[in-house]
C-alpha cells in the first residue's frame, strides 16, 4: 500500500480547557482531493490549525507522507511541505503582491516541478498585473488568488484550503473552482474545507464531515451525493 499524503489518527485538540476536536481521524491519498465539510463552528478551521502547528494536538498523531509532524513548530511543518490557504485569506496587507509571494517561497523537493513567481503569475495573470500593489488594496477575489499563490510558492506536498469560496461572487467562486481542478490535475494533494457542498462534491474524491468536533461521515463524493439524509442532518442543506 502506498503511503498516505496526510493522515490524522485519533487527534484531540483544545483551546485552553475547551475541547474542540474529539478523536478525529482521516487520510488523504497522494494526488487526491479530500473535502472536509461541516457547519459553522464544527471544528474545520481548528482541524487545519492543528495540522499546520498553530495548535498542538493533545492526543493522536498527524503524519505527512509517513513522517510525524504532530507538535512541530508551524515554520518547520511548512518547510516539510504543508501549505495553507487560511480562512479569510489573511494576506500580508502591507506587503505588495509580489512580496507576499516571495516571502513564502521554499525550495522544491527533489524531482518535483517547482512553483515559481512566473508560474504563479501564469496561473493568475491578474496578480502579475497587480504585483506592485499592496495586498490590502486588492479585491476579495484577488486576495483569494494571492492566498492560493502564496501557499503554492511554498511548494507544498499537501495543500490545505480553508473555505476559499467564502464571501466571493458566484463568478469568482467558479474561477476558484477551476483553479482547484487544475491543481488537482497536476497531481497536487489537497484538503478542501468548505461549507459550499455543491462545489465540494464537484471537486472531491473523498469527503469527511465533522460535526461538533467529531467525524460523522467518511466516504466517497458519490456516496455522499446520494445520501440526502446525511447531508441534511449534518450540513443542514439539501
Amino acid at each position, binding site marked *: 500500500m502506498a503511503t498516505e499524503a496526510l493522515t490524522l489518527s485519533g487527534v484531540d485538540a483544545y483551546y485552553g480547557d475547551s475541547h474542540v476536536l474529539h478523536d478525529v481521524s482521516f487520510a488523504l491519498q497522494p494526488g487526491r482531493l479530500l473535502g472536509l465539510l461541516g457547519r459553522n463552528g464544527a471544528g474545520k478551521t481548528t482541524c487545519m490549525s492543528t495540522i*499546520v*502547528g*498553530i495548535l498542538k494536538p493533545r492526543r493522536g498523531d498527524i503524519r505527512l507522507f509517513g513522517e510525524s509532524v504532530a507538535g512541530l*513548530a*508551524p*515554520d518547520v*511543518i*511548512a*518547510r516539510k511541505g504543508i501549505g*495553507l490557504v*487560511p480562512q479569510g485569506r*489573511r494576506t*500580508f*496587507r*502591507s*506587503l505588495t503582491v509580489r*512580496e*507576499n509571494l*516571495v*516571502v*513564502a517561497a*521554499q525550495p522544491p523537493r527533489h524531482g518535483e516541478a517547482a512553483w515559481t513567481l512566473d508560474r504563479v503569475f501564469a496561473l493568475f495573470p491578474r496578480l502579475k498585473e497587480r504585483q506592485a500593489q499592496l495586498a*490590502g488594496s486588492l479585491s476579495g477575489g484577488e486576495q483569494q488568488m494571492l492566498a492560493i499563490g*502564496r*501557499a503554492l510558492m*511554498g511548494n507544498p506536498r499537501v495543500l490545505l484550503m480553508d473555505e476559499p469560496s467564502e464571501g466571493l461572487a458566484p463568478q469568482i467562486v467558479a474561477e476558484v473552482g477551476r483553479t482547484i481542478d487544475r491543481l488537482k490535475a497536476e497531481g497536487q494533494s489537497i484538503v478542501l474545507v468548505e461549507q459550499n457542498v455543491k462545489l465540494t462534491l464537484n471537486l472531491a474524491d473523498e469527503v469527511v464531515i465533522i460535526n461538533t468536533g467529531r467525524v460523522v461521515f467518511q466516504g466517497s463524493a458519490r456516496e455522499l451525493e446520494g445520501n440526502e439524509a446525511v447531508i441534511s442532518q449534518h450540513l443542514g442543506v439539501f
Partner: protein
Amino acid sequence: MMVQITSAQAAILAVNSIALGGLLFLLSAGFSLIFGLMRIPNLVHGSFFMLGGYFGVTFLDRGVNFWLAALLSAAAMAVIGGLIERFLLRRLEGQILPQVLLTLGLAFIIADICLMVWTGDPWQPSPPPELRGTAQAFGMFFPLYRLAILGVAVVIAIALWLMVDRTRLGAMIRAGVDDPVIARVMGIKVSQLFTLIFCLGAALAAFAGVMGAPYLSVYPGLDFEMLPLALIVVILGGTGSLLGALVGSFLIGFLYNFGQAMFPDLAYVILFLPMVLVLVLRPQGLFGRVEA
C-alpha cells in the same frame, strides 16, 4: 509663562533639536521594530542606550578611535541583546505581560550594575577630533558634532529603510509585523527574526548612546530619561513603522528643546500632550496601520 527667544537662540535650539532627533531615531527605530514584531514595549531599551554609552566611554578612555568605540559598543550590545532574547524572553514567548516585566527588571539590574562599575559621576567624552569645531552659516556658528549626529542618523535611516523595504529579509520582517501566526505558517522563521531584530535594536541603541555621549554625557538615570522619549516617539509615529520613528523622533527633538526653552513650566505637558492626543484620536500612530 512664555519665554521670548531670539532668532540666534532659535537657530541653536533647532540644531540641538535635530541632533536629539537623530539620536532618538537611532534609539526608537529598534524599539519600534521590536514593538511591531514581538508586540512588547522593550523597557530595557533605554538601558541599552546608557550601557552602550558606558561601553563607549570606556573604550575612549583606553584611547580607542571614536567611531571604532561606537562600533565595538554596538557589537557588544548586539551580543547582550541576543542573549537576553534567546535565553530570557524566548522562555516567555507569547506571554506579553511577563515579558514586559522581565525587561523592566533587567533595566533596574543594569542600572545598578552601571552605578557599581562606572560610579555616579557623569562621563562626557570629547567628540572625535575632526568634528570638534563649528560650522558657520547665515552669520552664525553651529557645533559641527551635532550636525554630524544628524548625518549619521540619516545614513543609518537610509540603510535601515533599504533593508526593511527593499530586501526579502525586510519583507519577512514586515510579514511578521502584519500577521505573525500566518508568517510562521508560510515557513518564515519568525523566532529567528525576533533574535535578529532584538540584536539590531540593541546595537543601534548602544551606537546612539556612544554618539550621544559627547553631547548628553553618560550618567545614572540616563536610561530612564531616554526610555519615555522612545515610547513617545513610537506612539506618535506608530509601531513597526520606520518612517513613523523618523518623523516622531524629530518632532520630539523639537518639542523637547523648544518646549524647555520657551515654556519651562510646561515642558512635560508639551512633550506628553501630543502623545495623549494621538492615543485618543489616532491610536495607531501618525504612520501606523489600523489593525485588520
